[in-house]
């Protein structure tokens, strides 16, 4: 593979910035974020964004299948296919997809979440044809045979042990989500239940593959140094003959409203207690989401945030604490967590944490705090767009979360800017309530001893 010097035109483009800053916030250069959409007859959606600033590209495939589409007894299948897609097709043997990408100087990987499964190759720009061919091949001709799926099943089982069963935080988060959702598929873990992983059968795997791995259930996103027309021709060439399938049936279950706090006392051989709590929030496309994201920043981004300042700094009840959002297509999750410092009662930490949230519902934050949160969100947004990988991912996630409206990612800074003080207070008061809360507490079997004098007094 030959890497040629950048042509003059490319060098000139470097001086057209993607983002400029104005008093009212970041202004994106719309020409550099103009996504070209092309749809194949078989329903495959193609989204293309040229950027010639470096001779690389990212090729990402989003399949609209995640743990949300699974059923009891076969949980974890979406994630399992993320692994199986590397285990060989008609044309290539097990792991050869990865081997070929590497031999051409590229890197590939994949990841699975509640609503989608995503695959990607980051590679030199002269290898677009190679990756289009490889991705089309495994979409159309995956081989599902016991010789590969049995060892892969063991690997995924070990993955579950490593991430969840042998990891306290992994276990606690699983306890929160499984308790929060009584009906909706978000209630089971993305990696699946251990007994399901050990039990999947060949026929179930084949059925899952043929249902969801079809062109009309997927989107190809390419960002980087390529020519749009050439890319369309290549993708037409390699994907054009793959037949469409029936549109997959979407899960219909709606999680019923929660009418009271759910509490789980999680007893483990541990010494230091941990509190994790989850709240139901609306789906990512809902109009209250920007205000919830602002609230999350006010609560927990940076050492001047409410949670850090009060719990870690001023009252010193926790060694670590914070909060985060899982934005999901269907109603999602807002989580908060806190550790418990030695010599402090768990109840005190819990009270402090929940009082901070109640305070946000009862009293408006200052204009300055609101502006700080908006600045943080905007700067996160810009930093995400720095790499071609990040840009493709922003488009892909918007596609999934906003039900196809991928261009909405460009509006995010404006949506944050529009959030008012009243909005923050209202969304906290609406969603982060005791009745809507699921609280999981790690109760240590062997609690740590009270601190020694030297520690509390400190110093010399």
């Amino acid at each position: 593979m030959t890497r040629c010097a950048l042509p003059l035109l490319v060098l000139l483009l470097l001086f057209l910035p993607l983002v400029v800053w104005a008093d009212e916030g970041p202004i994106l250069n719309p020409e550099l974020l103009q996504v070209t959409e092309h749809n194949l007859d078989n329903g495959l959606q193609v989204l293309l964004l040229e950027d010639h600033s470096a001779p690389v590209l990212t090729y990402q495939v989003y399949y609209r299948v995640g743990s949300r589409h699974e059923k009891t007894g076969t949980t974890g299948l979406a994630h399992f296919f993320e692994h199986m897609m590397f285990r060989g097709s008609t044309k290539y043997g097990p792991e050869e997809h990865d081997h070929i990408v590497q031999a051409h100087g590229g890197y590939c990987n994949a990841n699975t979440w509640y609503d989608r499964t995503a695959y990607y190759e980051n590679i030199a720009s002269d290898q677009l044809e190679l990756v289009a061919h490889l991705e089309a091949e495994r979409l159309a001709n995956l081989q599902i045979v016991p010789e590969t799926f049995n060892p892969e099943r063991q690997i995924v089982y070990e993955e579950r042990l490593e991430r969840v069963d042998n990891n306290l935080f992994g276990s606690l988060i699983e306890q929160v989500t499984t308790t929060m959702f009584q009906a909706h598929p978000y209630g089971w873990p993305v990696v699946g239940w251990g007994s399901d992983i050990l039990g999947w059968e060949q026929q179930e795997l084949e059925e899952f593959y043929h249902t969801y791995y079809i062109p009309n259930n997927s989107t190809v996103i390419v960002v980087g140094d390529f020519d749009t027309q050439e890319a369309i021709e290549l993708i037409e060439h390699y994907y054009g003959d793959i037949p469409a399938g029936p549109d997959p049936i979407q899960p219909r279950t709606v999680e019923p409203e929660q009418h009271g706090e759910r509490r789980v006392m999680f007893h483990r051989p541990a010494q230091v207690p941990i509190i994790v709590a989850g709240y139901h929030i609306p789906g990512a496309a809902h109009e209250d989401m920007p205000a919830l994201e602002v609230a999350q920043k006010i609560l927990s981004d940076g050492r001047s945030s409410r949670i850090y300042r009060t719990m870690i700094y001023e009252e010193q009840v926790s060694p670590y604490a914070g909060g985060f959002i899982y934005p999901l297509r269907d109603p999602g999750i807002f989580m908060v967590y806190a550790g418990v410092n030695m010599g402090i009662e768990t109840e005190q930490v819990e009270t402090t944490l929940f009082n901070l949230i109640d305070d946000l519902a009862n009293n408006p934050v200052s204009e300055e705090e609101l502006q700080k949160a908006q600045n943080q969100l905007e700067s996160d947004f810009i930093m995400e767009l720095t790499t071609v990988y990040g840009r493709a991912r922003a488009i892909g996630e918007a596609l999934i979360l906003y039900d196809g409206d991928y261009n909405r990612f460009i509006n995010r800074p404006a949506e944050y800017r529009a959030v008012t003080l009243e909005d923050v207070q209202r969304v906290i008061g609406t969603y982060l309530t005791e009745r809507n809360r699921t609280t999981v507490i790690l109760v240590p079997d062997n609690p740590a001893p009270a601190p020694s004098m030297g520690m509390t007094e400190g110093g010399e």
Partner: protein
Amino acid sequence: MKSYKLLSMLLAVVFVLPAFDVALAQTDDDPVPAYTAPVELDDSPVELPNITRKRLRNGLTIYYVPQHEVPVVTIRLLIRAGSLYNPIDQPGLTYFMGNLLTKGTETRSAMEISETMDFVGGSISSGAGYNGSYVQSTILTRDFEMALELVADIAMHPSFPEEEIERDRRRFLTNMMARLDDAYDIAEDQLPSYLYGEHPYGFPLAGTPASVEAFTRDAIVAQYERLFVPSNAVLAISGDIPWRDAHQLVRQYFSDWDRGDRPDTDYENPEHLEGGQILLIDKPDAAQAEVRMGYVLSPYNMGEDLYAFRVMNQMFGTGGFGCRLMLRVRSELGLTYGIYGNLTARQMEGAYTVEAATSNETAGQLIGETIQLMRDAIADGFTEEELQHAKAYMMGTYPMQYETPEDLATQFQTLLMFNFDDPAEFIETYRARINAVTLEDVNEIARRMLQPDNFRYVVVGQAEILQPQLEEFGEIEVMTIEDLQ
């Protein structure tokens, strides 16, 4: 410590780490290019952007790496001294000091620093590793001067307030206790002393509960004054800022820093401890065994051997890329989600370590397979096909490691930290040097540097199940969690 792990876990989603298998492509009359054929290797010099290097009178070295697509700048000040410079009876001192830097200067309180940075949506952090210490900030270009002045203030005038020392002490002690609740953390914390013995490398970065309880403000200040001198520092500024504008401000804020003397370290290279020793830590509730195996091998900068070693380890042990460890232990046998063999990066001798997690029942099998793979590589060497593949991957992805100016600036600092005197030359010639490695070279390196008989082991899991499996690998010492408290 803990919170970082939690966040990284949440953000990681669920990744696959694919490994390759040498499989035969089926013939087909579809006119697809022969992608399985060997690939032509490009070993031309990597093109670097226009990097400007400057030095102030007080010895501070500065690198400016431009990028103008996104209005973001990263400022990173690296001190080329870390935990290796700890007094032997005060493990964790440099790490503790590094964490305190952003928590107060002569003119700003900890909260003022946080407020200022949080308000503009930027970040600022400080810390220390085994090899270096740092202060870093990433901000939007419009806030560059504010951030630069803040980084300078934090690096030059930290005040180490007593109350901040006590806050961190309390937090650190709880976190250390919490680490004993997690098998992964226990293995990570116990491995250093088992590999390096009585040496600054033989402690966790954060030190021990006893050392953290005993730090005095005087000791913290003395450690800062010894390490934080401009003649031992490299400042890297990368992103959307013209270097001339940046340099004018750097001169303004950093020129008053007293030159100082570069610190010396009192330590010799760590001893090579006897192999075949096993520390088995009993965690009766462990759902999996955490396995660590390692031996002291070489400094990160190993001179002429470096390139052959890296190619050899690409084929043997470095995770996720079709190496022998992953191919056999993960893909074929399904024993683990991931197994990784790496040289720990140290200025003095680092260790070659293999790490993996596996079910309690299969830990012995995993260790046995790892040792056998090493013996096979030593006896039979690698194949020409493996060599070509490793080179193609290493050479092809090398330029992608420097996609952002921040990556490049950090790499310059890292190379200097490990005493590679000409980072630009190192990066430019890297691909040609990798390409020059021969099969003979890698096989010779494998015979010399893969040392299965020297492995020392730390295993955390259910001792009752593990002990009978481990006996064939050496002498076992069993400890309980209570013993570690």
